[in-house]
């Protein structure tokens, strides 16, 4: 049994990563587009982590951007200002610390569910937004800057130079791939079986003897630390972090992307972010009122495609509804 749940997913993933691998060759150093793709891929990681929470675990949060922002902040605060640190070591730190924060936050927010959970996650995210926006030490509204990018040597070998856009792009692509594989593995695992069960019918899962709180907490921590990893990449790409990364509309936009891509499909997160950002880019160049048209288009897409773009692709390839 492969890790793919259907044919369209398999085709999409193969195509996407094949194109992703070779596209920098065709762009021939057009750094604008390479940067653009890196940004979208980072976003896709963030959306994927949110999709796991919303679409697979059934926990709807409007505060996921808190971890996205925290990822950036943790790195910037932790790393010495004028010294190149090791990328992998700091990846570990960022994910560990954000995972720990997610554990504490999860202990609080997972006591609620549904609309109350949306409210409390939103409230906590806004709290951290204002904490960073008002803190003088952490740069207030302007945030903090990353002056020196980390080096990526591992066992003395150094393949990637993060100052180089193409190298950074490949790092993002690799991260997205790992993220996808990671989520597929945990979805197919014994743990994933319980997550599927408690998403569909939490009461029955409890009646079968599962303490669903523990499972939700683990899912929350995993998803949050991957969101933080995406925020960390964002900070590296743009060289700064600021509170706006944590603002609620980042969470909401990601939620729209996840829905657009097809909630719970995981690979739909990639489609969702690319379609959303692609539309954004094109409509923005056509008209000043891009938000209006964008909104209308997204409403139309969400209404017509019941299971998002992923569901649409699945129907196209003749797959059964899942």
């Amino acid at each position, binding site marked *: *049994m492969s890790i793919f749940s259907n044919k369209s997913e398999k085709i999409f993933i193969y195509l996407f990563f094949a194109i992703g691998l070779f596209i920098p060759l065709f762009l021939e150093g057009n750094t604008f587009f390479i940067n653009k793709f890196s940004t979208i891929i980072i976003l896709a990681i963030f959306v994927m982590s949110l999709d796991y929470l919303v679409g697979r675990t059934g926990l709807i949060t409007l505060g996921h951007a808190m971890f996205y922002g925290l990822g950036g902040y943790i790195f910037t605060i932790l790393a010495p200002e004028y010294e190149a640190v090791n990328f992998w070591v700091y990846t570990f730190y960022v994910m560990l610390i954000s995972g720990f924060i997610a554990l504490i936050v999860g202990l609080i927010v997972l006591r609620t569910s549904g609309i109350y959970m949306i409210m409390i996650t939103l409230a906590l995210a806004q709290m951290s937004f204002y904490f960073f926006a008002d803190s003088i030490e952490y740069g207030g509204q302007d945030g903090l800057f990353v002056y020196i990018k980390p080096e990526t040597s591992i066992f003395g070998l150094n393949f990637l130079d993060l100052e180089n856009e193409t190298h950074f792009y490949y790092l993002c692509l690799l991260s997205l791939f790992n993220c996808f594989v990671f989520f597929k*593995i*945990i979805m*197919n*695992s*014994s*743990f*994933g*079986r*319980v997550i*599927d*069960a408690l998403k*569909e*019918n939490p*009461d*029955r*899962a*409890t*009646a*079968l*003897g*599962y*303490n*669903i709180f*523990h*499972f939700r907490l*683990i899912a929350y921590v*995993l998803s949050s630390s991957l969101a933080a990893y995406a925020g960390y990449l964002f900070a590296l790409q743009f060289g700064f972090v600021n509170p706006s990364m944590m603002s609620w509309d980042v969470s909401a936009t990601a939620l729209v992307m996840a829905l657009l891509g097809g909630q719970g499909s995981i690979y739909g997160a990639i489609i969702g972010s690319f379609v959303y950002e692609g539309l954004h880019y094109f409509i923005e160049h056509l008209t000043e009122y891009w938000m209006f048209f964008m909104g209308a288009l997204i409403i139309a897409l969400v209404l017509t495609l019941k299971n998002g773009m992923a569901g649409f692709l699945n129907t196209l390839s003749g797959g059964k509804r*899942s």
Partner: protein
Amino acid sequence: MSQTILEAENLCKFWGGLKALNELNIQFKDKQLHSIVGPNGAGKSTLLNTLCGAYPATSGVILYHGKPITNLKSYEFCRAGIGRSFQKTNIFHNATCLENCCIAAQQRMGGSFNLFKKRSKNRQITEIARSALEQVGLAARADTRATEVSYGEQRQLEIAMVLATAPEVLLLDEPMAGMGHEESQTIISLLKELKKKYCIVLVEHDMDAVFELSDLMTVMVDGQHLITDTVENIRNNPLVQDAYLGNDDEVF
């Protein structure tokens, strides 16, 4: 006489001022089918929900093998060995029948916190799930999605899931609700088999089935225990006829 497994002492469950269970004393013995009957609102379902930990008891004690388990968390009741099926079909509709039982079996077998081991690699769980499906006669439906099987089969699946948790006590809440005659017969013969191995507490409105299956019957009225006796004695008891059976106008 077989031993008492599950016992309720002075069990009370109040919903505000409503006494759904009032000072109930009842004992369930191993390898017996003990059915609980009574008019609507007598507190039968409440009793099951309290016995399986879904509702915390207002007061009183639940004893399991002589030990009080009243303060366990609701998910710990199942781990202790008290399995429960639901009045309203309560299964995982999007999963296959086999997967439904796997979810149930995995709780007991452990490994639920294993993030990386493929769920299909755990053969033991799949085997338990398969044998549970076989026991209820659903083996042929193993790979069919639970939404796609008939209503009667969903009820069977419901029981299979409870069996997969390896319980000692089965609390069955109207397993024959909404079934046709033939489907009911399937469940009846299934329960006849099961009562040889498990302590079964059955709440059911189908009186023919109840009379056919029960070793002991308890009649409840208004949250109170009216009488517990064998089927024959219950049939002839004037009190019971008054409260429940005798009145032809009664709608169950």
